[in-house]
C-alpha cells in the first residue's frame, strides 16, 4: 500500500495533531493549520484522529496510487481528478491501482488536505509525523518521486451522511492578550471593525496583517513563551498572528489572541485577502 508523489506543488507536507511537549527545547508544535478540515478528511476515510494527512499550499499536488486506495480531499476548494475524471471534494473516493490523482490549485483558500484510509505511515519524530517548517523538525517536505507508505485500513470507512462546509466570513475575533496593557490608550477599541489585508510573507509560522498601524508603548519585552493564535505587535504596529509553526518564545508583546474557532480561518486566508477584526 503506497502512493507516489509525482508533483508536490509549491509546498506539501505531512501533518497530524502536532508535537506538544517540546517547546521548552525550542521546538515548534506544528500540526495541520486548518484543524477542522484535516479532521474532516480523516473522518471521511474512517481514519484515526491523529492520522497524518497531506497539507498542500495554494498549488495542489499530483499523486499516483500503488494499489487501490480510498482518499478524501478537504480544505481549500479545488478540482480533484482521478485519471482525468473529476471526482468529489469533501467526500471519500476509492481510486484504482496506478491512478493519477490531481489535487488542483486552490480556487479559494490556501490549504487542501488529503487523507488516506489506513493513514500515512511516516516515521514519527518526537512523537509526531507533522512537519515543522520553522526548523524542519519532522518528515521533510514532500518531493517528486517520494513514495508514501499507507497503513492498512482498519474498517471500511463509514463517512458522515452529509457534509456541509459553510463559507467562513472573513472575520477574526480577538480577545485581550497577556500584554494588552502595551497598547496605547484607545488602541484596543480602535481595532474593532478595522479591516486588514493579509501580507504576502504570511506562512505556517505567522499570518502577517497589513493595515492601520496599531499604536503601542515603545520597547521590547524579555523573551517569553508564545501560544498559537498570539497576536504579536512589533514596533511597526502591523500585527502578526502566530500559527502552528511559531517560534516557542518571542520578544514582542502579545496584545491580543485570536479566538480558537477562528484559527482555521487564518489557515485559509491568502495574501491580499481582507479580514475584519472584532474585539467584542
Amino acid at each position, binding site marked *: 500500500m503506497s502512493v507516489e508523489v509525482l508533483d508536490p506543488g509549491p509546498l506539501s507536507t505531512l501533518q497530524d495533531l502536532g508535537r*506538544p*511537549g*517540546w*517547546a*521548552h*527545547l*525550542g*521546538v515548534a*508544535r506544528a500540526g495541520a493549520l486548518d484543524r477542522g478540515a484535516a479532521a474532516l478528511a480523516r473522518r471521511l476515510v474512517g481514519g484515526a484522529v491523529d492520522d497524518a494527512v497531506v497539507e498542500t499550499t495554494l498549488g495542489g499536488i499530483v499523486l499516483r496510487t500503488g494499489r487501490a486506495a480510498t482518499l478524501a480531499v478537504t480544505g481549500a476548494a479545488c478540482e480533484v481528478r482521478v485519471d482525468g475524471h473529476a471526482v468529489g471534494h469533501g467526500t471519500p473516493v476509492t481510486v484504482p491501482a496506478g491512478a493519477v490523482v490531481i489535487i488542483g490549485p486552490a480556487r479559494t483558500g490556501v490549504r487542501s488536505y488529503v487523507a488516506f484510509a489506513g493513514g500515512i505511515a511516516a516515521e514519527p*519524530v*518526537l512523537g509526531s509525523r507533522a512537519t515543522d517548517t520553522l*526548523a524542519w*523538525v519532522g518528515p521533510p517536505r514532500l518531493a517528486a518521486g517520494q513514495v508514501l507508505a499507507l497503513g492498512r485500513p482498519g474498517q471500511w470507512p463509514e463517512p458522515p451522511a452529509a457534509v456541509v462546509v459553510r463559507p467562513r466570513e472573513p472575520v477574526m475575533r480577538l*480577545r485581550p*492578550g*497577556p500584554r494588552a496593557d502595551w497598547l496605547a490608550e484607545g488602541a484596543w477599541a480602535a481595532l474593532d471593525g478595522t479591516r486588514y489585508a493579509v501580507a504576502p510573507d504570511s506562512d505556517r509560522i505567522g499570518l502577517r496583517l497589513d493595515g492601520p498601524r496599531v499604536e503601542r508603548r515603545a520597547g521590547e519585552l*524579555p*523573551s*517569553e*513563551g*508564545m*501560544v498559537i*493564535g*498570539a497576536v504579536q505587535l512589533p514596533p511597526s504596529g502591523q500585527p502578526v498572528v502566530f500559527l502552528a509553526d511559531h*517560534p*516557542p*518564545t518571542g520578544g514582542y508583546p*502579545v496584545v491580543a*489572541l485570536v479566538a*480558537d474557532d477562528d484559527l482555521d480561518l487564518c489557515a485559509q486566508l491568502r495574501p491580499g485577502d481582507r479580514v475584519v477584526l472584532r474585539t467584542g
Partner: protein
Amino acid sequence: MGAMRVVPVGERACLVEVRDAVAAASLAVWARSAGLAADDIVPAAATVLFDGVDPADVAAALPGWTAGSAAPPGPVVRVPVTYDGPDLERVAEHWRCQVGDVVDLHTSTEFTALFCGFAPGFSYLAGLPADRTVPRLATPRSRVAPGSVALADGWCGIYPTASPGGWLVIGTTDAPLWDADRETPALLPPGTRVRFEAC
C-alpha cells in the same frame, strides 16, 4: 518568593511572571516534578508559560513552589571549543582585555542552561559576570555556521544549525547539540551545567 503574578493567556494558558531567568528555570523544573498537567511548560527570561492548563489550577499550585528552593544542580556537560571566532577581538575590545583573557574567562566560567528558544537545541547559557556583556551586531549575519559559540548581552549560546544571527561568535564546537533521535534531543536542556574547554 518575591512578586509572582499569574497573567492569563486566554482560557487555556497563562504566564507566571517571576524575578529572572534563574527563577523561571527553577519554577519550570519544579512544576514538571510536581506533575502539573500541561501540554507545554516553557521557561524564558522572566516568565514561565503554562500552555494547555486552567490558569486557576496553576495559581492554586504555585504556593507549593518557592524561588529559594532552587532546582538541584543539573548534570555537567563539557563542550570542546576551538576559539577562532570572527568576533573574538570585538569581545576583547568591549571587555577592554586581551583575546586570551576572553578565552580564559569563558573556559573558567560554569554556565547554566536556563531556557531554550530561537531554534531546537539553542540554549541560553547564564554565568558570565554582570559586567561582561556585549551588544549584538548592528547588522546580523545572514548565515552563522552550526556549532558557532557566541555571546550576546550576558548570555552565551551555541547555534545548533546554520541560521541568520547577530550574536558575537568567539569559537566553534562539534558537540552534537540536537538529535531528535536521542532520548533527550537537546544536549543542553534547561538546568544543565556547561563547562567549555579549549581545544
